[in-house]
């Protein structure tokens, strides 16, 4: 079963997910809503890299590193925990994997993500992928459909501290820092 909102963060949990990526079809504005799991929400885009474009994608990793260093909250609208990018070839050509773990269903903030992808150049990296719409600059909906069409849902997800949002983690760490500061003042 999908998350019912009452899970205990102290109890690690795993969830096996059906082939479709969801238990019951819940429609979002652009397609099925994928469920919240012990590992929060996620998106896993896999697409083939255009021949000869590997280095261009790798180079973009440095660009994103610099963008976040210059403006640490640049990716905040995505409500991310983690982002992982991979390039791999298991015999069918080089593929790019964009894996994001975040705290909201991707469908909800799709347009914000597309705008952010464009402003940070993530979209530019996508232009090195097969099937990416050539008119992405003037047709945001085509970009949305590309992302949805290349989503590969998980069939198992696990959380050591399940269903905890990044905001809750940050609140707990802020509280810990505040207590540490308070104790310092008591010395």
């Amino acid at each position, binding site marked *: 079963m999908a998350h019912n*909102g009452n899970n205990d963060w102290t109890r690690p949990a795993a969830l096996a997910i059906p082939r479709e990526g969801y238990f019951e079809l*819940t*429609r*979002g*504005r*652009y397609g099925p809503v994928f469920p919240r799991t012990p590992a929060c929400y996620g998106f896993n885009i896999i697409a083939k890299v255009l021949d000869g474009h590997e280095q261009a994608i790798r180079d973009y990793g440095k660009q994103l590193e610099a963008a976040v260093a210059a403006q640490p909250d640049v990716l*905040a*609208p995505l409500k991310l925990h983690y982002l992982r990018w991979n390039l791999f070839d298991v015999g069918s050509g080089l593929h790019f994997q964009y894996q994001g773990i975040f*705290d*909201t269903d991707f469908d*909800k*903030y799709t*347009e*914000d993500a597309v*705008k*952010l992808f464009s402003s940070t150049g993530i979209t530019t990296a996508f232009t090195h992928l097969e099937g990416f719409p050539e008119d992405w600059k*003037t*047709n*945001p*909906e085509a970009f949305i459909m590309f992302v949805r069409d290349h989503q590969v849902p998980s069939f198992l997800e696990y959380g050591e501290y399940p269903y905890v*949002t990044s*905001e*809750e983690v940050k609140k707990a760490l802020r509280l810990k820092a505040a207590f540490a500061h308070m104790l310092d003042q008591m010395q």
Partner: protein
Amino acid sequence: MTELEFDDIQHIMLTGTPHLTGRYEFLSFDTPEAGRAWLAEMVPLVQSATDVRETVNVFKRWVNLAFTWNGLRALGVDENTLASFPNEFREGMASRADILGDTGAAAPEHWVGGLAGDDLHAIVILFARDEEERVRCVGEHDALLARCPGVRTLSHLDLAATAPFEYDHDHFGYRDPISQPQMKGSGEVLIPGAGGALAPGEFILGYPDEEGLVANQPTPEVLSRNGSYMAYRRLEEHVGVFRDYLKQNAEGAEGQELLAAKFMGRWRSGAPLVLAPEHDDPELGADPMRNNDFDYGTMDPHGYACPLGSHARRLNPRDTEPNPNRRRMIRRSGTYGPPLPEGVADDGVERGVGMFLICASLVRQFEFAQNVWINDSAFKDLGNEHDPICGTQDGTMDFKIPKRPIRKVHKGLPAFTTLRGGAYFFLPGLAALRYLTTLEN
């Protein structure tokens, strides 16, 4: 910048009108010929924004026309053109109810007035200065329908403002609307805090939007240019339930007013809680140059003044959500049903607001607001909450009011409103209305 074609844009998009009454009439066309014959007689009554600005003191009635996707088909629009409209408009509001959160008592199977049916084709929006004019206009339209066999009225909703008449407000007493978006080139005086003048393409087809794009427009251009999409919502207001809840959950008249303000994010006078956190300030509420001049991120980040889940903070989160100006909508509305006098128990009579949310993209603007801001329990990590005023409520949800040292949680919030129907309409420009009358089978 492309200049707005005021003389081709239906006035509802750019100007409010001084109406106290009116009627929304919902129609069905049995044949394309009948629909077009009716439309040909109606088109001369529809005023442009230019017309209304120049003649608002002359006329006593104002008319707008809009069509569902099924209605465009019923008028004889060809399949290629119909296919060029966006998916959400083609599906219609009732078919998108699960996405919008219109479930339970708000689900389409409970809607009234034939609004959920495929035979809903058109709406006539009549705003009238007084009741005498409303009755006269309804009589003229009835006579037109008698001359146009094959055009049927599915239902109608008569509007009536309630006292006090000096300003617009709903049956709960909240001043409305306050935070209207503003448009570049509209000639309006900029309102501090209203978000600045936005690109017309956020609201009107055929113009660049905030991204500078004129994307995914229906074809042909003569049909789409100067048009817009309009989400209609008939929202019943349970005034007795609302007043009883305030009485049972707040101390004295002042406490009740404060609780009502916490639900809305503004006092009933319109004064925003961020600027008037402890006591109402009716002068502030009535002053458009001051009553929007605030933010949430720096002035009230934790919601001690204005709860994070309050209606106004959800629907216009200002600086606390990314790209808020890509979600703005023009709102027009009228109240219906008799007022419920103070101190009188709920009489079971339906009363509420019939409102229109006007935007260039139903999926990006209206559906986002419904799906993410109004009916999403994950909004701002609030958990078990929907919008307390217009969200879908089934008596199991909460409303949290941040307060030092400990927040107040209202559990099991009742439904203060219930959606009684709705529909997606396309609001064509005047040239497009004339184009529709010239279609052939």
